[in-house]
């Protein structure tokens, strides 16, 4: 069953990523693009965890944790810039 579930999840996440990229280009506003980038990093983090299951390796978790932290910081920095016009005041 896993031999079906993991490729199915790969396909679903790829479709999700394509839709996010379409929203990233479509806009129409800056906050929409930040939201699309936020969703993209969350989806790619889930894809990395799935790759860890597929290759039966735990080496991908550290990469997933790093993506989670840096993506969060990136989202906060971009939103702060939208809100205040400045990141560090």
């Amino acid at each position, binding site marked *: 069953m896993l*031999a079906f579930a993991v490729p199915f999840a790969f396909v679903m*996440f790829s479709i999700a990523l394509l839709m*996010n990229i379409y*929203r990233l280009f479509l806009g129409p506003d*800056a906050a929409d693009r930040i939201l699309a980038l936020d969703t993209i990093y969350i989806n790619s983090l889930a894809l990395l965890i*799935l790759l860890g*299951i597929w290759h039966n390796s735990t080496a991908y978790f550290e990469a997933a944790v790093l993506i989670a932290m840096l993506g969060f910081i990136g989202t906060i920095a971009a939103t702060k810039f939208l809100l205040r016009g400045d990141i560090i005041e």
Partner: protein
Amino acid sequence: MLELPTWADYLASFFIIIGASFAAVGSYGLLRLPDFMTRLHAPTKNTTLGVGGIILGSIVYFSVSDSLSLHELLIAIFLFMTAPISAHLLAKAGLHLEYKMISSTRDLREHPEDYSDKSQHTAKERDSERAD
């Protein structure tokens, strides 16, 4: 991938399929919903249910095939803590920049009385007054 016992195989597959479906639905919502405030709501399904399902499946897989492994939970806890913060800041940015809203997305700043506990009541009263 290793062969798992049947129950673990089906349990992990169940979580992974649920998570992947929710991720696709959340991204479809991000693509299709009409204004920024509604689009903000859709990808939260990605964060909580999508990644949560994948992480539960991964915990089942690695715990059964090797020894008990819970360090995936670190990612889930971190995401569950940070997702509301980024959503809150994005909503603040959307309000601050005054993006276009559809008519059914109500801006409560124009009706401060609706913040109270009786908001349903007052909203109904206002609508009936408007109808008169």
